[in-house]
């Protein structure tokens, strides 16, 4: 009786122990990727924990790959060329990778997990992307729904950027959210102001970041940003410039125009600013000042629905109509656009009708 009991316990224990051992061995071999090495552009080497997405591994080591969707595989911006150690494509990557990109081994770094040593290649500019700890120096209202936020850089204290680029603004957890979220905003400050970043943020209903900025952000708060990113900057040519933007789209254009003024650029510039009523206009004094400083710059605001109390004497109508009738020399000029997708599409159409080739029309693609 006792013997049977003991033997049965023994046998079961034996079986359980053998199996448990098997599990431990499996976990240590199959489940564990150990530490892997990432070699970037043949010069930088990182040692990271294996098994995590490439995007995350790089972020943790201070190398920031642009991403608009927070690593969910929805924006396609985080493409990285994996020269060695790639392995098979995941089903979540394939919709984003073209045939040509496949032959170049371009991977979606938020989905591709680093399971062994890899060698990757990223654009050189990304090395200058940094994460900045900043303090809010001032917040002021530009209009009823746009706030100007000026950040002072603490660590690192300086940023190297081109006029027109953008940064990613980190929104910490607040109210109903439970993880940080990133949103991209163009910088309105000039490159020469290396200790500051200025942003123009318009309140969007149901928007996570804009609600945070308009309802919770205060002077003195700490804000994490990273950047600079973006292909939207002034091209180094002699051509005339036509700028079109409305609302918070002014930010990158303000940066570009101020930068031009500082460098005493001789180029002709026109800025067509579209708004609905008088209360949507802002920074009119600064624009006037720029007109005086620069060689040949005109700020042309247009209201589509001027109210009687505005006493508006300027241009009226949709901004596309104003551009159509007032733009000069469009076929030889360059255009810089910033605004909502609908506005940009409409403006591109008008500019092409005026003879401007599409390669000379620049706009921020992240928006």
């Amino acid at each position: 009786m006792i013997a049977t009991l003991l033997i049965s316990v023994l046998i079961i224990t034996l079986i359980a122990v053998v199996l448990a051992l098997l599990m431990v061995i499996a976990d240590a071999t199959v489940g564990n990727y150990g530490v892997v090495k990432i070699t970037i552009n043949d010069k930088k080497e990182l040692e990271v924990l294996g098994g995590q997405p490439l995007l995350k591994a790089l972020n943790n080591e201070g190398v920031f790959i642009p991403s608009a969707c927070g690593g969910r595989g929805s924006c396609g911006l985080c493409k990285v060329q994996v020269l060695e150690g790639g392995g098979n494509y995941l089903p979540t990557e394939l919709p984003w990778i073209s045939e040509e990109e496949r032959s170049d081994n371009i991977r979606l770094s938020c989905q591709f997990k680093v399971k062994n040593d890899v060698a990757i290649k990223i654009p050189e500019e990304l090395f200058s992307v940094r994460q900045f700890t900043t303090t809010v120096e001032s917040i002021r209202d530009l209009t009823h729904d746009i706030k100007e936020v000026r950040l002072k850089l603490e660590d690192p204290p300086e940023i190297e950027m081109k006029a027109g680029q953008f940064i990613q603004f980190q929104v910490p957890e607040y109210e109903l959210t439970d993880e940080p979220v990133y949103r991209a905003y163009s910088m309105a400050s000039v490159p020469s102001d290396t200790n500051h970043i200025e942003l123009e943020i318009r309140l969007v209903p149901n928007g996570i970041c804009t609600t945070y900025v308009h309802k919770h952000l205060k002077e003195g708060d700490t804000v994490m940003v990273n950047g600079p990113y973006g292909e939207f900057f002034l091209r180094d040519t002699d051509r005339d410039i036509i700028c079109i933007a409305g609302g918070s789209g002014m930010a990158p254009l303000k940066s570009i125009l101020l930068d031009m003024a500082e460098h005493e650029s001789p180029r002709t510039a026109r800025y067509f600013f579209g708004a609905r009523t008088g209360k949507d206009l802002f920074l009119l004094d600064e624009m006037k000042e720029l007109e005086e400083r620069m060689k040949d710059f005109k700020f042309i605001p247009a209201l589509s629905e001027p109210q009687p109390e505005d006493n508006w004497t300027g241009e009226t109508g949709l901004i596309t109509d104003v551009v159509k009738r007032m733009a000069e020399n469009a076929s030889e000029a360059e255009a810089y656009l910033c605004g909502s997708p609908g506005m940009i599409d409409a403006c591109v159409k008008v500019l092409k009708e005026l003879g401007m080739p599409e390669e000379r029309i620049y706009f921020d693609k992240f928006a």
Partner: protein
Amino acid sequence: MKQTPGYDAIQRQMAPGVITLEGFLGTDNRKLIDILNADDATVRRAEVTHQQIAERMQYFRDIGLDGLGEFMGVDDHFDVRVDSVRGKLPSPFGGPGMYEKVNTTVVNKRLGREVVYTDLHIHFVRDHGFYEGKGSSYRLEPEDLIAILEVAPAT
């Protein structure tokens, strides 16, 4: 009904503060799969398909873009306004594509009712038959959409 972890992950993406401040499920306590099944049944009883509803939504949105943010008349008894803000949103269902923040307001003057939806919603309806959870301020009741947009049953 039990749903796979794939749907659990999508439901988590729909929570407030992940993609939009309010999220996409409102005060609905049901599992995503049950919400989808219930709305799917409603649509089928009306003898239309999600594709047809999405096509009508797209139709008004595309025509309304020309208004550049103002109301314009469409098909003699509709008023449509399309406005947009910068930025794009990913879909909680995953997959490629970022959706522009384009808001379309369609007013059916004959019925005296209106409906508001975004590009993300057109994708939700067309690709997933998703109309948001009950209690969400952007909840699109399929019957309302069918009536206001005048989605015709398949012949």
